[in-house]
């Protein structure tokens, strides 16, 4: 019944990725909610998400994310907490001088900066990989949608 109404949207105030007007939340409850404030009950979506979660590509993406996030988080938490614990409970070891007056404690604290930068850089690279995987999932979900089954 509705396929006859092909129409063009005004493009004066479209956000590139949403393809919609800038959704600044209006005050009060009279106006409709912007897209980012919707709850699951209010949101209706032509994509069948429960089927998307069954896709092998989607599962591979979730696994790849966890494979990066969990070890990275464990590593930085342990590495960071090692600093106060060692400084607190092994002061003799930590105050051992390595280069001139510079001791292990100082080098260890300094290394935390490099640790953080390296993990952040690794995450940037991994995030680009996740984006590619998401792209594949989205493409596949879209092609399922434009098939006859998804049109109505």
């Amino acid at each position, binding site marked *: 019944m509705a396929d006859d109404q092909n129409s063009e949207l005004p493009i004066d105030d479209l956000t*590139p990725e949403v393809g919609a007007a800038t959704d600044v939340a209006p005050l009060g409850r009279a106006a409709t909610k912007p897209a980012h404030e919707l709850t699951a009950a209010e949101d209706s979506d032509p994509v069948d998400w429960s089927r998307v979660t069954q896709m092998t590509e989607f599962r591979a993406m979730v696994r790849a994310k966890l494979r990066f996030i969990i070890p990275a988080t464990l590593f930085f938490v342990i590495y960071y907490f090692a600093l106060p614990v060692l400084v607190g409970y092994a002061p003799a070891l930590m105050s051992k001088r390595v280069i001139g007056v510079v001791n292990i404690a100082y080098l260890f604290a300094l290394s935390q900066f490099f640790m953080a930068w390296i993990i952040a850089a690794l995450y940037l690279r991994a995030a680009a990989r996740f984006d590619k995987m998401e792209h594949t999932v989205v493409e596949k979900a879209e092609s399922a949608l434009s098939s006859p089954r998804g049109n109505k």
Partner: protein
Amino acid sequence: MALAMFLFFVGVTLVITYWAARRTSGASAFFAANRQIKGWQNGFAVAGDYMSAASFLGIAGIIAFQGYDGFMYSVGWLVAYLTVLLIVAEPLRNAGKYTMADVLAYRLSARPVRAMASLSTITVSIFYMIAQMVGAGALVALLLKNSGISFHTAVIGVGVLMIVYVVFGGMLATTWVQIIKAMLLMGGTILLSILVLAHFGFSFANFFNAIGHVVYHEKGVEVVKDFLQPGLRFKPPYGALDLISLAHPRAFLYGPRCQDRAHQRRVGHGIDWHVLYSDNLSGFWRGYDCGPRQDRHKWRHEHERATTRAVSGRRLLLCVHCGNRLRDHSRRGRRLDD
């Protein structure tokens, strides 16, 4: 001299506010600077936001007086951003939501989530702001001591200035004020570092030797202390526990602020750039990575054509290319031209 410099900076920022106010009309311009802020600009602004009195004066002060323990304290601020990045920002990324409350409200009961989010935001902001205002007031009163400006006048003056920036200039003015602030602070720090190194003949060995043998007077007695050794502040028997209890909230509870900055950026991929800039500039990560990405439309930016279709009994606007919904237009009931 101090007064002239102070007035100069106030004047510059007010000119920016005036310039921004003239260009700002409408909600999108006020809250999101019309999405005209580029990645590198937002990176500078985020860095400027972060480099507050706490990191600039507080950390410098605690290192100056307590040596290594202060340095160790500063490490936590950096590592906290990995928590934000990996545990908070990563799941929020590409969710198509602005804030954590948006994400939580999607599946959970929306009203209590929103209420708690607002309450905690206001609570944290108030306590954060009190400390900032006291710091700013003390600083201004110290700088302008000779001009007879009292602490109270300074606090009120700074507060009024901030309100003027935000109310009249909106996001455009605050962004540029933060960019200038970030550049000034970083320029100042680099200059100071060079001057300090010059004092020691550009020799790291001399520099560290001096830190290792700091001479000062304690109750009239000359004391030599090694500022590279831990324990100047956190002493036994509870020193270790103090350190760990301090480290814990800094690493885990340092509130991520998924603030408006995330959604001003102009293009979809800008976010990664300002992450990168912000990282390079200040070495700190903020909850920036939670901007909206309606991901199904991210890959094709030319989705302006749409069609309406009936999907499960409702009329929705769908993209002609991929069949996905263009969310806002159907909800706003926007008049569509043929």
